[in-house]
């Protein structure tokens, strides 16, 4: 019997595709070798956000006096942190398994490989499908000559199982994962130094956001070496010594390698079956179709944004495409990005650098959270920056601040719906909220600033 769709990999992309396809009446088999939910649920989004919340609680407890709350911070209970995190993960894991069962998706446990067009082999079993969706995700990368030993030199996966709070950590890589985990380690009490080869932390964000993050991290005592390459690392009895390309050496108890994640595309027959692969990632068109007809690829396996909700969107789009609904392609600039460190950094739309590249004439407005009472109450510095096309719609929203990530959804609607600043400005935001900062930026862009100092 042939299924309508065989999905290989049960992470964010794979399971979203399976659910949507089943909803559309398709027969679906989902093949997963490990745990349904994949990286995001078990080793990514969810556990790291649990750690970040423990980190937030630790910081609030430490700072409680400034809010009139008498408390004594006695340290981190690492086992308690894991128990909390694991409870959250287990619950969500049960949830997604229930969803798939409820939708009538057949789940197969096992390691699959592409055995032919429309054929996925798992052990001696072959699953045939009129369509195949590859969603095997990604795995941590490292640098040449830098071996992950799981003891002194670790990746995010080890952080999620750490048995103690280290005294000191060097974080190699100032992207989202490096920044988030640096934030956690610092809140837990470690000395942290981030090493980033590009000139800024979160180098793909608006430069002003990176700078605000750097300033906040400096205040928190998180150190960083920017614009300098890693040269080598040597483990010692007590830790690890890192040498940078400029000759500087750093030592710490741990080296966390967060230099990016590479698509999991090898050893599963993809290339043998003629699937075009470039620099490890599967090449697809705007509907996530690979070079082989009837075979799609989604999620971290393809060279689009490595985000769970990008994977959801791709999975849904592919299911709808197979069902003949002719879904519009995804505008990746319109997919929101959040870094959940303290402070959070969030954005949607394009950056000023991208606007310049594309020759789009823009106007911009920065609203400093110093003028936003709710942010003052939360004790956060930061800003909301809005970019709009001259005499046109908003093209980018860039934000830094505690808890600011939740505001990106407003930016997402504004950007994707091509709202003019004036169309937002007419809607006075609820007082006192952090979202007023977005409102104020829009009011100012619309030529009617309210709480804006000139």
């Amino acid at each position: 019997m042939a299924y309508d769709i065989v999905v290989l990999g049960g992470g964010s992309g794979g399971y979203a595709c399976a659910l949507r396809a089943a909803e559309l009446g398709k027969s679906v088999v989902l093949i997963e070798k490990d745990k349904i939910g994949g990286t995001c649920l078990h080793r990514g989004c969810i556990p790291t956000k649990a750690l970040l919340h423990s980190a937030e609680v630790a910081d609030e407890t430490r700072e409680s006096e400034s809010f009139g709350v008498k408390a004594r911070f006695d340290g981190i209970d690492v086992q308690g942190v894991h128990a909390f995190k694991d409870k959250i993960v287990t619950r969500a894991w049960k949830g997604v398994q229930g969803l798939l069962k409820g939708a009538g998706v057949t789940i197969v446990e096992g390691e699959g490989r592409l055995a032919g067009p429309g054929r996925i082999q798992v052990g001696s079993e072959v699953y045939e499908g009129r369509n195949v969706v590859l969603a095997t995700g990604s795995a941590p990368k490292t640098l040449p000559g830098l071996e992950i030993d799981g003891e002194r030199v670790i990746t995010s996966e080890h952080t999620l199982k750490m048995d103690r709070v280290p005294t000191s950590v060097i974080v190699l890589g100032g992207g989202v994962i490096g920044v988030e985990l640096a934030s956690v380690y610092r809140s837990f009490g470690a000395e942290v130094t981030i090493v980033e080869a590009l000139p800024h932390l979160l180098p793909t964000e608006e430069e002003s956001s990176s700078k605000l993050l750097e300033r906040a991290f400096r205040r928190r005592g998180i150190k960083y070496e920017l614009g300098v390459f890693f040269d080598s690392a040597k483990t010692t009895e007590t830790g690890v010594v890192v040498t940078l390309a400029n000759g500087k050496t750093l030592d710490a108890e741990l080296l966390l390698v967060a230099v990016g994640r590479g698509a999991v595309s090898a050893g599963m027959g993809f290339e043998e079956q003629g699937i075009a692969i470039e620099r490890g990632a599967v090449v697809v068109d705007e509907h996530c179709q690979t070079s082989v007809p009837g075979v799609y690829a989604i999620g971290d396996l393809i060279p689009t944004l490595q985000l769970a909700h990008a994977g959801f969107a791709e999975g849904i789009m592919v299911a709808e495409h197979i069902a003949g609904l002719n879904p519009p392609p995804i505008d990746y600039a319109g997919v929101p990005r959040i870094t959940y460190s303290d402070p959070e950094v969030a954005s949607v739309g394009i950056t000023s650098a991208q606007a310049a590249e594309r020759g789009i004439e823009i106007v911009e407005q920065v609203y400093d959270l110093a003028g936003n009472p709710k942010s003052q109450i939360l004790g956060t510095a930061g800003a909301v920056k809005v970019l709009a096309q001259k005499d046109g719609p908003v093209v980018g929203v860039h934000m830094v601040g505690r808890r600011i990530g939740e505001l990106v959804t407003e930016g997402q609607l504004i950007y994707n719906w091509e709202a003019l600043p004036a169309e937002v400005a007419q809607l006075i935001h609820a007082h006192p909220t952090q979202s007023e900062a977005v409102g104020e930026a829009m009011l100012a862009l619309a030529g009617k600033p309210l709480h804006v100092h000139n």
Partner: protein
Amino acid sequence: QPAAAVRHAPRVISPLVRKLARDHGLDLTAITPTGPRGVILRRDVEQAIATTAGKTAETAMDTTPK
């Protein structure tokens, strides 16, 4: 737009763009989409408004929200 040739219903993905057309009495099915897969963008409606305004020699229409 080859792929958009067999559109069933006009595709607008923004309520604001939909409203802009409605406020100007424009029929969405008569608007030429320039977005991917036949999506009607703000600029398409603005273009149609300009064309209509030109044709009927009306005074320039106000496109700010009401």
